[in-house]
């Protein structure tokens, strides 16, 4: 499964959800869906914008963990 580590990166950059939302250009509600791992897909444009604002790579935000059987 894919784990979204957006909250970790936001904490490292000391950035609030509101600030990230304003700078990325997506709503707080959508950002919250992404942060809590409820999103089904992420657009490359959104991922690119988040990486630009947080100064990181997609690998810093997304992580793959094998499902436990």
């Amino acid at each position: 499964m894919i784990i979204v580590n957006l909250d970790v990166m936001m904490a490292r950059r000391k950035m609030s959800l509101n600030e990230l939302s304003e700078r990325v250009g997506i709503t707080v509600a959508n950002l919250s869906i992404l942060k809590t791992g409820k999103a089904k897909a992420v657009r490359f444009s959104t991922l690119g914008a988040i990486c630009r604002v947080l100064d990181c790579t997609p690998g810093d935000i997304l992580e793959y963990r094998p499902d436990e059987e």
Partner: protein
Amino acid sequence: MKKTSNRVFTAVCVFALICTLMWVVFYAIQTYFVLTTGSGDGVINWDSPHIGRKLTVFVINRILILTMAGLMGAFVFNILKYLKGGMIFNRANVVLLWVMAIVLPIHSFISDNMGSACSDADQFDWMLTDTPFVYAIVGVIVALLYKVACDAAEEQKLTI
């Protein structure tokens, strides 16, 4: 959703609600005349030896009309409710469409037999045409398509 589309959808939904209401009112008036006009063609033949069966078909028909009107009204009302949030597809309507796909063929079968139930003839013979099957097929196709569209809309909504 664009404002224009929103207005068009609202207008269509309100029109559908008015039509459903008119449908119920029309059959309420017709029910009064069928039951009070007396024996004859187009109304209940009270002297028929099969009056029990004829009346049963008539009552089931009226109940099914009310059920279908309720289902259609709820369907349109749900669309109007979710339209404010920019969505016309919702899970409640998926369930309503599946129920309609079951009720509609039964309603069609009973309606086909209303001619016999409300006739001057003493006899009552059950009639089965292809109409209930056609309605069943169309109902299932519409319910399936709506479900697919609902799934796609939900996925689109959760694509950030």
